[in-house]
């Protein structure tokens, strides 16, 4: 398993796999395979995939720690960039196919539908993270500040669920919202639990936890 994860081809293969949903949607849009309401289908599918990649990227660290596979960390940045990519495509297809690039319509729509504002806000945060995802940015910002900025992914998770919840609220349709909400909540819950565990460990064995986290930081 570890060998597989560390293989030279692992990243490129995963990159292509992550692009497959987009490639399928692109093909389906071109071939008129998106059903009766193609614009709606495209916008919603891109939103779904944004949420899925958000779940994936937030699962990397818990999985890494729980299974003791540090090799997983190699893929975290790529997954994160895919979250930003699908979110951007989601936003862009809304602007293009739902609003027909009409700025006043978009302004009116945001006033009417606060969930769009919430979604856009999450999009801005994701764009900021994507723009500072390269190694030099960490040095320029300083590790602490960079880390704080990238912890806004937790805010993004909350905004994304709120966005999805509000969008479905009009039709009382919360089954899927509950599924994504539960996944994201458990991924964030694990972090809280883990932080508390470390704190407790740190209290009994001073110094240990700090050294550990510093080592992780250096590895990046």
């Amino acid at each position, binding site marked *: 398993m570890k060998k597989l994860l560390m293989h030279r081809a692992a990243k490129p293969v995963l990159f292509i796999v992550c692009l497959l949903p987009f490639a399928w949607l692109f093909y389906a*849009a071109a071939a*008129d395979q*998106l*059903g*009766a*309401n*193609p*614009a*709606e289908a*495209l916008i919603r599918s891109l939103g779904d995939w944004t949420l899925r990649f958000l779940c994936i990227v937030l699962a990397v660290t818990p999985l890494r720690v729980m299974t003791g596979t540090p090799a997983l960390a190699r893929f975290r940045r790529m997954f994160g960039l895919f979250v930003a990519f699908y979110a951007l495509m989601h936003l862009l297809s809304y602007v293009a*196919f739902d609003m*027909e690039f009409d700025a006043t319509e978009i302004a*009116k*729509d945001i006033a*009417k*539908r606060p969930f769009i504002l919430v979604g856009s806000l999450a999009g801005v945060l994701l764009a900021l993270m994507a723009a500072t995802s390269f190694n030099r940015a960490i040095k320029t910002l300083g590790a602490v500040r960079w880390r704080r900025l990238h912890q806004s992914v937790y805010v993004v998770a909350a905004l994304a669920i709120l966005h999805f919840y*509000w969008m479905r*609220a*009009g*039709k*009382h*349709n919360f*089954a899927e919202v509950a599924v994504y909400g539960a996944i994201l909540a458990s991924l964030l819950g694990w972090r809280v639990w883990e932080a508390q565990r470390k704190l407790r460990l740190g209290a009994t064995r001073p110094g240990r936890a700090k050294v550990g986290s510093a080592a992780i930081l250096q590895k990046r």
Partner: protein
Amino acid sequence: MSIFHRNDGFVHPVPSEITPQRVYEERRMLLRGLATGAAGATLAAWAGRSALATAEHPGKLAALPGVASKVLGAVSMEKATSYEDATSYNNFYEFGTDKSDPARNANTLKTDPWSVSVEGLVKKPGKFSLDELLKLSAQEDRIYRLRCVEGWSMVIPWVGYSLVELIKRVEPLGGAKYVEFVTLADKVTMPGVNSRVLEWPYVEGLRLDEAMHPLTLLTFGMYGEVLPKQNGAPVRIVVPWKYGFKSAKSLVKIRFTDKEPATAWNKAAAQEYGFYSNVNPEVDHPRWSQATERRIGEGGLFAKRRKTLMFNGYEAQVGQLYAGMDLKKNF
């Protein structure tokens, strides 16, 4: 700039620039109505036929032929939505909340035997078998625009007759002010009924005068065939000037009451779905605009949205039902 020009008297704007499209479309409707009155049904049938020609006969289910309708506004001249789209993109929460769920899940629905009981404030209550209902009045072809509250629309050739035919038969009592439509809620054949998205059974309702308007259709078929299960087989209501959810599917009970019926979506979110729910571009849903709509099957991804029409374009026929009413309050 010279005021007089030798071309004066010869340069006219084209007629389409003078007359708004809606006005001349209504004129056509009026002409067809006149034809009905004056020259008899022959001319009306001929006028209707040109529109019917755009509707396909899919050959999937039992044929249900209809005669041309004499009701004003009953035959839209617009291009009918494809049968494929009209039967694969549906809101029918009893079979799931996704638009593709009804087409996938509705095959379990048992439509035979079927009966509709008529009760409440009527002189002649009773239970009508589907066969009795089918034969109660002549089946007519009606091509209606359908506007969903979610902001999309279709044009569907229905087959049925005006609900008023049935209402006349059961003779409402003086106290009857509203008509309630109760639809099937069968946990065994309808997987969605196990969810708590809405209160089951799905109940809809109309004011008695709305229910008696000739455009309100007791519907048994579409595209010249019996209703597909995902579209509300075997019998449903279609009210073309209201948002689609007002048109209850798979009817089992019609009840005449003196009180406004508590309808499914109104119970779920009263501030969002009013009892009337007339299509109205000026009254937005609290969460989204109702000014425009996307016509399904029109140009794919890059199609422009259409402007939504007052009463879904049936203002000439139904506007007087709401004379003096504040439509913003009675949304």
